[in-house]
């Protein structure tokens, strides 16, 4: 990523060209764990959006004070603070969802997307650039989660966002809501993303 991109360019880049899940393979635990239905996936994306924007802004504001060897520690403590806020908020206003997401909300602390964005972007750029970057990356994350959750929820329970899509005679593919289905869906979607992104465009290139 070049150093002089405008906030808008950073925002657009995060969505598809540098999608955190499909392109950079970051933040895999929540990607697989909470995508057995669409609602949980969207709540998770919202939590990540909040934490990423908050952490990126704070890190960007204090970037002049960071000491190189304490940097990662400061990042994680900042992130942990925002995650605690998000976790308490979910527990207060969306209790059933907070129960369903369980430990995966606190696990946002060690989500590599956020540490990576703090390190790569926020600790070097102005708050505006950091904000654009955070919004783009979290939107890209939300899109990735939505794609996986769509496949898994429709095939696994015949519904999408809780609304019945497939006819009632559909036999649910139970494997899709089990852990195995998460890995399979992720692997196949990753293959499709690779095929669309690189292999099809320059068929000569080898990996």
């Amino acid at each position: 990523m070049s150093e002089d991109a405008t906030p808008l360019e950073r925002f657009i880049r995060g969505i598809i060209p540098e999608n955190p899940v499909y392109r950079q393979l970051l933040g895999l635990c929540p990607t697989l764990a909470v995508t057995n239905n669409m609602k949980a996936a969207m709540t998770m994306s919202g939590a990540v959006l909040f934490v990423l924007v908050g952490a990126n802004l704070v890190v960007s504001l204090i970037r002049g004070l960071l000491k190189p060897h304490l940097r990662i520690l400061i990042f994680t403590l900042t992130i942990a603070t925002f995650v605690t806020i998000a976790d308490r908020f979910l527990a207060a206003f969306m209790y059933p969802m907070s129960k369903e997401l369980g430990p995966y909300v606190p696990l946002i602390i060690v989500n590599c997307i956020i540490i990576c964005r703090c390190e790569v972007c926020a600790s070097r750029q102005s708050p505006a650039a950091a904000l654009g970057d955070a919004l783009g990356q979290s939107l890209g994350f939300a899109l990735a989660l939505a794609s996986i959750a769509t496949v898994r929820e429709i095939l696994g329970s015949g519904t999408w966002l809780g609304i019945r899509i497939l006819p009632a005679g559909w036999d649910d593919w139970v494997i899709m809501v089990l852990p195995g289905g998460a890995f399979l869906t992720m692997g196949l979607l990753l293959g499709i993303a690779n095929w669309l992104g690189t292999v099809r465009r320059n068929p000569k290139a080898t990996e």
Partner: protein
Amino acid sequence: MDLLVTLLLIAVGAALINNFVLHYFVGLCPFMGVSRRLDTATGMGFAVTFVISVASFLSWTLTYFVLRPGAPVTTWLLHREVDLSILNYIVYIFVIASSVQFVEMYVRRFFPNLYRSFGVYLPLITTNCAILFACLEIMKHVSGVEDPSRVWGLPQALTLAFFAGIGFTIAIVIMAGIREQLDVADVPRALQGAGIAFIVAGILAMAFTGFTGVDRGLEKLLKPAPSRAETSSPAQVHSSGGEE
């Protein structure tokens, strides 16, 4: 005897039934990143087992004595019950980061051979979600549990952590073995690398789904029927993930 059975159930649950990688999806980054070769995968597995045990010991101690509602230290200091559990996450991440740092220094000073075999994996473990996940699982059984007889002691916490690490090692070693064979297989180009790794992991996860219910079978076998009602709680709580 009851304690031993409980520990056995926790161990089987953590290592096989609710395998951290293949059931809870934590620790996926090293699972995907370091599973290309068998020897590095083994090294990573043991490094994680080591750190997860140390971090869980520290976080259990802190949760039990300081952080949980009505913990001894805060009650003694302030003469009333205080709930510090809002600080849990910050404290855990701090404990993990510093314990990795100390473990690294200690191992380098006293076990240079072991240090060389761990290599760069020790510092990488700080951002391994499996460690934090183990701390959170332990927290769930210590902090905010109403019935005092159900609160986990140190043996339960350490068993969970150690066998979770063993489960991680098993998963990553199997994965590395398969991926070494995949190097010579003809994989479609779009799936090469991460794509096929995920599909292999999916098949592994399906295989591990086969362990579901083993803990309940063991429990029936090992626990005398009359005392089951009051002693079976920790294992049942733990196995609830496998029933979904």
